[in-house]
């Protein structure tokens, strides 16, 4: 027995594979998250639009070859997105400042704590951006896009074990970098 949202998605995918004109439903469903992911990587609206267009156009054309591996359809879209971003920015890095994070903490901290917390978050994410591409992608998909490791594996074309290793190495490197940046008390 599979979960209902997945059943619903399978129906949409099956329809789009049978009739490309049905792809619009998948576009409506996934546009926002893919665009958000792309924008977070390229940090420029026009570039995000270009890459997002490329991703969905590639997805539409590749629909007949799509195979349901049991993972969400979004994982496949992220795979196309990761590759598209890599192709476009193979030699470039985002240059915009990292100022657009929202705190998801439930409890309301004191203002000074909150400011410190946000500062630390900004600093850590700044370090993420400096990580090697593979580690950076794995961390973004895990911590920003909230994806499961198996889905990240699909998106990155790696095994789940390799993704775990990338995450581990990435976070370990963050700790090292953070320690190095931490002011001496």
């Amino acid at each position, binding site marked *: *027995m*599979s979960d209902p949202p997945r*059943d619903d998605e399978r129906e949409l995918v099956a329809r789009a594979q049978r009739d490309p*004109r049905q792809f619009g439903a998948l576009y409506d469903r996934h546009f926002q998250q893919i665009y958000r992911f792309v924008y977070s990587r390229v940090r420029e609206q026009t570039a995000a639009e270009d890459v997002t267009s490329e991703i969905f156009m590639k997805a539409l054309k590749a629909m007949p070859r799509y195979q349901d591996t049991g993972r969400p359809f979004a994982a496949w879209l992220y795979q196309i997105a990761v590759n598209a971003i890599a192709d476009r920015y193979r030699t470039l890095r985002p240059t915009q400042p990292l100022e657009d994070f929202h705190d998801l903490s439930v409890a309301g901290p004191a203002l000074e704590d909150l400011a410190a917390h946000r500062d630390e978050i900004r600093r850590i994410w700044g370090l993420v951006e400096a990580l090697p591409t593979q580690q950076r992608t794995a961390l973004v998909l895990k*911590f920003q896009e909230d994806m499961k490791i198996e889905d990240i594996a699909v998106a990155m074309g790696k095994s789940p074990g390799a993704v775990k290793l990338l995450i581990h190495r990435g*976070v370990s490197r963050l700790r090292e970098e953070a320690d190095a940046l931490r002011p001496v008390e």
Partner: protein
Amino acid sequence: MNMRHDPELDDVLQDQELRRLGELLSSTRRAEPPLDEAFRSGLRRQLMQQAWNMSEGRPSLWRRVFAPPGLAWVGATAGLVLIAGVVVFWALQPTGGGFNQIYINSPMDGSNAVALQQPILVAFNQPMNHLTTEAAVQIAPATNVTFTWQLNNTLAVQPTSGNLAPNTQYQVTIGPTATTATGQPLNTAQTITFVTQPPAPPPPSPSPTPRAPVSPSSLLTGEHQVAPLGGIASSAVQWSADSSTVYFVNSSGALEGVLAKGGDVKVVAPDGVSSPAIAPAGDRLAYIRGGKIEVLTFAVGTTAEIAVTPAATLVGWVKDKLEWVAVDGLHTQGANGPTQLAALPATGIVSAVSFAPDGTHAVYRQDLKLFLMDLATAKSTQIGQANALFDGWSPSGAQVIYSSGDTLTISDVHGRSVGTLPGADASWSSQDAVLLGSETDLYQVRPDGSALTKLANGTYRSPMWAPNGTAFAFFRGGALWAASAPSLPPVPTTLDLTSAVVNSFMTARQKGQTDQAAAFLDDGGKQAYSSGGLNLVITGDPHFSRFYILAQTVTGFQPDTATFVVRLVLTHGKLDVADFEETLTVIRDATTRRFVIDQAAAGAHRDLGKGAEVVGVVVAADRIQVMFDSDLKADTVTAGMVLLDSKGQQVGDAATYTNRTVTIGGLKLKPGDTYKLVVLSTVQDVNGHNVAAEYDLSLVGPAATLEADLKSGAVAAPPAPASPTPTPTPTTSS
């Protein structure tokens, strides 16, 4: 500071500081990036254009024909034909050639479908003497007429009864005694021949081919965006019972509700929601959240949580009772707690899809196949072929819609296909209208495929009717929309449907299309036309030139049954010289739900031109109307026409006569009983000719519903309905 804990990372980030960093990263989300909505919609248009280019199967023929370019060509062609016809007609008119020759002409000459409400026009190529010309006019069948002249050379011959007789071949002869205004005689008689239409416009019958788009613009009203969704998580929109509110799951998994007319979106449950289902009474809303069932009671605004094991994956209502699906099968809430209704297959990838509205069946998918389960017996039936997709239920739950390829199929609960519709996102309303939405347009159609009407161009994905059968919700872009659709035209009556079958059957025979004609026969009908002595295709001279339905009536239900008397006219040269009648019994096939001809019998040939002929019979429970092709001598009618019951006893009042129509009133015909209409040979036309021979017609009392329909005016009034069957006579064939 609260951190989000992700168990998946426990074995990846085992070090406490690493875990803290992971939780720190998880505790943040980027703000929504700047987004130009024009980009979102523009990209969607590009994708859809690409999708159309990629689409392998071309649109069906009717879509192509009725697409704007196709329609333009059809219109242009029709226009050219009309223009060519007019040109040819006038080109063939005598040019006069001098006044030594007298020509007559009429636009009606040779026509086989002359309207009844018009005079007979006879044009001469020179001014005529009114008195001698009028005296020279002969009309068959016998008809009282008056004359009117236009410009001395065009004579309008007007039946005094007002209209021409239906289904009748007229011969209007101007005899040799007619003279011109200068006294020149016609010398030889000249005749105009034409055939009139049936007594009323053809009843609105479902055409096997869809109608063209009625209007290029939208027929919808009140179309508006209800709520932005930021994408679509599920197409499972639920309407409140009063059709005022829609509930949906947004892209974040939150269950939300909003007034259909628009307003603030209210959150019912903040996240993780699937399978929302509103109770038929509209008082409760059930949904699944975190594997548990939650039930919101609107009146008190409280939500009850029902923990079920195993976890629920689909929830629905049967009347006021909750039902759900879990990994081990289908369950319901019994008096003593959950009760398993049926188990689901234990092999393959199984997913439940939907409960029927009446709760008697459920649809589930096993691997690539779709199954319909009878919950009373737990017996499953596959519907469609592999890869079939579920598309919805009929409001009663007695039929299910599934799609395969470019076609929607309607199946009964036994898995038998009962009809097909063009492929699209479908929703079946309480008024038996099916919305067919797609990326590019919206159609409305009856479940039997009739009355297909294009409602609008544009994106109308996953339309969902409101309970009132007027409003509907749909998805466009990343938002939920609503609109109201116009009502479909009235549902065709059984007579509409059966007469369409009979007309198609007879037309195929007239064209010599044996295979097409045989397609309207079931086994009984085929036997009648093979070993039963009837000929499916009629050959020889005189030839089978036309037919018309003399009488028709619904004679039974379960199965729906109608009896038709069809008159087949045989023509030699241009003149109708004989006719005979076939009595056809049309029934609704239990499997296909289509009407087919089940029985057929033929009557004897009769020669025409020898007295008045019956050309139409209308039967109602309280009266019978018999239409003749000739004006009759009224005093011969009262004693010349009677209605007898099965015991030979006369029933009803004495026959009365007016305008070629004889009425026998004061009847109380019993449904299904047999009666006999007798037209004695003593009945005379206005020229003093007797009916050639006694004409007997067996009639069946109309079924009760038809009677009610007629009284209420629901059935397209006479002259269509009637029910006679000719007196059984030896079967003959031409």
